[in-house]
């Protein structure tokens, strides 16, 4: 895949991987055990401008293209999927403000988000609303020039750390809305959630809103469009992050297991010469290659502002996260008892990869949407073929 990158993308990727090798990977298992990131890694990422990766220079961002943003997530995901989760949620909110915000909102928030002075998180899911967001119960009520918000958001990645949350709910129980809510607003309470299976250092939280007063001017977009436009727009960035982070995790599996399979012997031969081990390693390598191409293809489409990018990003997320779950399970098998210990990264890959099949649209929702899309396209092509007599390719 590296050969397909532009020179500046290769240069940035080298920068990212060197940073991760020295500053992320050595500490990632400890962050998982402590269930939090160290303030030092957040400071280092801020100093390097990583919080503003995709934002334009006019808002003090780095102006990366989406392939570069993907490469960043791959490198970070190789070291710590939990840390990639921070850039995932932060970027979803920053990009939402850039697309849907007023000029005042952009000026007030984007430079702070780009510098890492403020960290953002997306407060979308609720105890009773995950894949089916129409079930959201968080209620916005209009009083003068303020919303009064009541409700509960749950499983909010980095909700325990964020300075500002993009909170979704319904105005008067019907119209979906989304508002920027600062963490210190009276009526907003943050309850940390511990002991998750994966993303253990991602400081998940439950956000309770009790008669929380939020200025109307904090709303992003307009009432009625939060679920049709704002949430899908944000989640597309989330899927890019998950797809590429899963790619990094896959690389971690192959690098760890490849070395082990070459060096360790059993029954008089290296592990790699046992057919069942070489089979697992071969599938890891093939899926890593395939996932890399899907991720690259998806972000190139996004860079070209192609309408096909939405589907391609879903394909990449679906494939890479499934491959991550399958191969991290095999990685634990190859590593044996040491793969079951928290001090070795493979057990972390295994736990994180399962979570990646659930977040930013579960893989079952991906199956539903992608499956119907493929079938529909086949039907259209067959119909066209019947009209023209020419063979069509799907």
């Amino acid at each position, binding site marked *: 895949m590296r050969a397909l990158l532009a020179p500046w993308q290769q240069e940035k990727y080298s920068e990212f991987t060197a940073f991760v090798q020295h500053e992320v990977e050595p500490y990632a298992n400890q962050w998982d055990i402590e269930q939090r990131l160290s303030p030092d890694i957040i400071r280092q990422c801020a100093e390097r401008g990583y919080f503003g990766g995709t934002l334009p220079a006019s808002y003090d961002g780095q102006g990366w293209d989406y392939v570069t943003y993907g490469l960043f997530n791959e490198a970070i995901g190789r070291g710590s999927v939990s840390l990639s989760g921070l850039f995932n949620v932060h970027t979803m909110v920053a990009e939402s403000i850039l697309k849907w915000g007023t000029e005042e909102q952009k000026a007030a928030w984007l430079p702070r988000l780009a510098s890492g002075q403020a960290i953002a998180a997306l407060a979308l899911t609720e105890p009773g609303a995950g894949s089916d967001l129409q079930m959201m119960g968080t209620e916005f009520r209009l009083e003068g020039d303020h919303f009064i918000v009541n409700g509960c958001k749950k499983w909010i990645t980095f909700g325990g750390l964020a300075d500002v949350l993009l909170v979704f709910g319904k105005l008067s129980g019907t119209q979906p809305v989304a508002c920027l809510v600062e963490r210190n607003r009276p009526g907003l309470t943050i309850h940390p959630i511990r002991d998750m299976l994966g993303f253990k250092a991602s400081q998940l939280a439950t956000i309770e809103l009790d008669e929380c007063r939020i200025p109307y001017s904090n709303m992003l977009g307009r009432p009625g469009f939060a679920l049709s436009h704002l949430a*899908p727009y944000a989640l597309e960035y989330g899927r890019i992050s998950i797809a590429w982070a899963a790619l990094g995790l896959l690389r971690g599996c192959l690098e760890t297991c490849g070395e082990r399979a070459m060096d360790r012997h059993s029954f008089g031969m290296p592990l790699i010469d046992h057919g069942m081990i070489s089979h697992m390693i071969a599938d890891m390598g093939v899926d890593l290659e395939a996932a890399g191409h899907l991720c690259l293809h998806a972000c190139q489409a996004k860079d070209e502002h*192609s*309408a096909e990018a939405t589907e391609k990003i879903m394909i990449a997320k679906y494939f890479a996260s499934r491959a991550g779950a399958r191969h991290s399970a095999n990685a634990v098998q190859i590593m044996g008892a040491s793969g079951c210990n928290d001090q070795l990264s493979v057990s972390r890959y295994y736990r994180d990869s399962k979570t990646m099949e659930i977040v930013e649209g579960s893989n079952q929702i991906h199956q539903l949407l992608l499956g119907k899309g493929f079938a529909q*396209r086949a*039907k259209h092509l067959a119909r066209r073929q019947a009209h023209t007599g020419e063979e069509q390719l799907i």
Partner: protein
Amino acid sequence: MNDVKQLEERVHHYIAEHVDVPELDYDVEIFEEGLVNSLFAIQLMTFLEKTFQIKVTMDDLDMNNYKSVTAITNFVRNKQREGV
């Protein structure tokens, strides 16, 4: 074919490729009738922005702009006239 008709045909063709109906009426309400999935609004927005060189912003978040082929065509024409 004049420019408006061409624009309308391109919009019609794009939407017809994403719905499962034998013939797509130009005035049928594609979202209201449940003809498209939850991601289509974003795909449509990207298609319009790229194909017709416009930029959809928060000011354009009005369902009347997107409800049918005819409505979308009018919306794009207005955006092109405004030059944004």
